[in-house]
């Protein structure tokens, strides 16, 4: 993040309003808080892996902090179980603006294999409405699929969130043809 090197640093296409300027300033260093909403731990140990020497995300200035009040970015794993909803809303509310959220793994993006049980909500998209109703605004959200998420995919996700890389996924619709 400090210098481009061989990587092509294209900025995102969104219009540069005030919030975007803040994001650019944030490129100096992002402090993250890890929020586990009832996941199996697979994505969580990959988050921890990202801090270890092999992937070493601290070379970008990203640091893990102990309280959401100090954090810029929340790493959300897990399908949001019914017992943790209140705590998740409180943790996200405790973040100062701008609030950035990275929803990790198939649980965080779409509820994963738990998308239809009585004890889970079904990932970040379901709790988005609850957050809005409680008056908690989230400024930027990026979804990272994977089960579990590869550490490289987490780094890629953070780079997409900060506008350093363009996402590759695009909706595709093709017609089935004869052989």
């Amino acid at each position, binding site marked *: 993040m400090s210098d481009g090197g061989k990587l092509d640093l294209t900025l995102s296409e969104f219009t540069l309003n005030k919030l975007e300027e803040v994001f650019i300033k944030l490129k100096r260093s992002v402090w993250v808080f890890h929020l586990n909403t*009832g*996941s199996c731990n*697979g994505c969580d140990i990959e988050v*921890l892996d990202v801090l270890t020497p092999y992937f070493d995300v601290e070379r970008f200035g990203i640091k893990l902090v*102990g309280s959401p009040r100090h954090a810029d970015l929340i790493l959300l794993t897990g399908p949001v179980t019914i*017992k943790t*909803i209140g*705590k998740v809303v409180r943790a996200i509310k405790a973040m100062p603006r701008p609030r950035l959220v990275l929803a990790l793994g198939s649980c965080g993006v779409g509820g994963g294999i738990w998308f239809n*049980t009585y004890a889970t909500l079904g990932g970040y998209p379901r709790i988005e409405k609850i957050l809005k109703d409680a008056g908690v605004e989230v400024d930027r959200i990026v979804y990272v699929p994977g089960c*579990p998420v590869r550490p490289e995919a987490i780094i890629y996700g953070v780079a997409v969130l900060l506008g350093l890389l363009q996402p590759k996924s695009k909706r595709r619709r093709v017609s089935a043809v004869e052989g």
Partner: protein
Amino acid sequence: MSHDYSELIEELSRGHRSRVILSKILEVCKDSVLDLSRRNITIKVVIKANCLRTALESIYKEHDLYLRTIAASDERSREGFLKLYYVFGIDNEGTNLVFEVPVVEGVKVDTISDLFRASDWYELEAHDLLGIEFNGRQMSRLVLPEDWPEDLYPLRKEVSVEELKKMYQPQLVSRVSELEVEEVVRIPIGPYHPALHEPEYFELYVRGEKVVDARYVGFMVHRGIEKLAESMKYDQVPFLAERICGICGFVHSTSYVQAVEDALGIEVPERAHFIRSIVLEVERLHSHLLWLGVALHLLGYDTGFMHAWRIREKVMVLAELLTGSRKTYGIDLVGGVKKDIDKDKIPKIKETLNALKKEFKELVDVATSVPQVKARLTGTGILPRGEARAYSLVGPTVRGSGLARDVRKDYTYAAYHYVSFKVPVYTEGDNLARTLVRIDEVFESISIIEQLVDMMPGGPIKAEKWEPQPMRLGIGAVEAPRGEVIHVVLTDLYGPYRWRVRAPTYQNLQAVPIMLKGVDLADAPLTIASIDPCFSCTDRAVIINLRSGSVKTLPIEAISRRVRRNG
């Protein structure tokens, strides 16, 4: 059973111990025993609820009998009753002893939580999820939230998931339950930790610097797995099982397929057994290295943490090469596995293991010679051997207290009977003993994998055909890095009728308050972590001074590091 039962006992017993135990049961309860049968290593006793306690009172003093799990099941549509299955193990013989108890709805069952202390949580869970009542004990909510409606039991067959979702709306307001205790400072530890693991909540009651008691409120990760499996097919459930825990997931999926294969009598090809054993041991390696890193981090030795995880990375790459994914391998199917280990991968396996052996030995030599590590691990968090046996604990927790209990030797499965290895046991019962058990197990695992790779047979990797039958009981037990995992399965035509999962931490967590008594506050996080909870519980701590009402927050590392060097 009015006729002479001594012949029947002879026929059913697998050895001297089961003969003795069966004779004792039939002596006190012969009129209430409805059926006796055996299949493979499981002896099943169908007994009426009113004589269950008497039967167990006659055998609970047997030193090699331990309670492994209690599964409750709703069979009112098939057999007209709710049922309770009490699964015991006879260690020296490797026999599963199952008591099947039909329960009439509304009639209370006698508790056995004073005889077998491990049954406490199982009875609470049976009540929460199926509505079975127990008399002689206090009931409280364990698994479901406090504000879950009464009389709504998720695992009953007439209730569907849609109905459950409609009838319970989760509230945003978090409830705080206060226990008024005077003159002690209450320190809640939970539920979000900066360096990962699941949300758990421990309350430590502290006088001065010593912990006097601990309370545990958990199950934040209850996701409704068992209800979900009842709507799935046989081959989809291994993927669900693997995501019960991301660190020891393959153990759960192997345990499930073993339970189904036990219930239906499926012949699994030898090569599949070998592949499963190799991947199980690879998982044990990664899990112990992970734990060692976290333990060193909690002690303040971050260099050790980084090096342990650097070494662990080699194991993750090896796992990806063998199975296709760094974690949640996804290769188990009922009847075998779906991915083979080709010959050209074997040199890579051996190369990785050699490098691992060398580097791990270096790391252990250095880490155990660091003064703060040795001083803080020795003599703290003592678990006496008598308590370990009384609570039916499992895994390295109990092997550090002198009990040689290991499913790979006692109830052997997969390809373990082909290899020779030893089970490390230490007798001191403190944190250092549990650490040394895990370190020794890493070297044993490396040796096991080398032996397995050398003698792998050829052949198919999956059974060709198998027929599902309804309502057969199967038990699968596997030794996870944390202890014994046991799954109980009742089969149906397309998928499981009832699936009961019991992870080792469930059994071990009940003993944490004992280990924490008398421990210095600074050693509490490490003591909790020394049972290697599959949900780590160390967290940000909030210190509330009850008298002055002031609230201070500290990161948990700060508590850990407030160490007092005592000699």
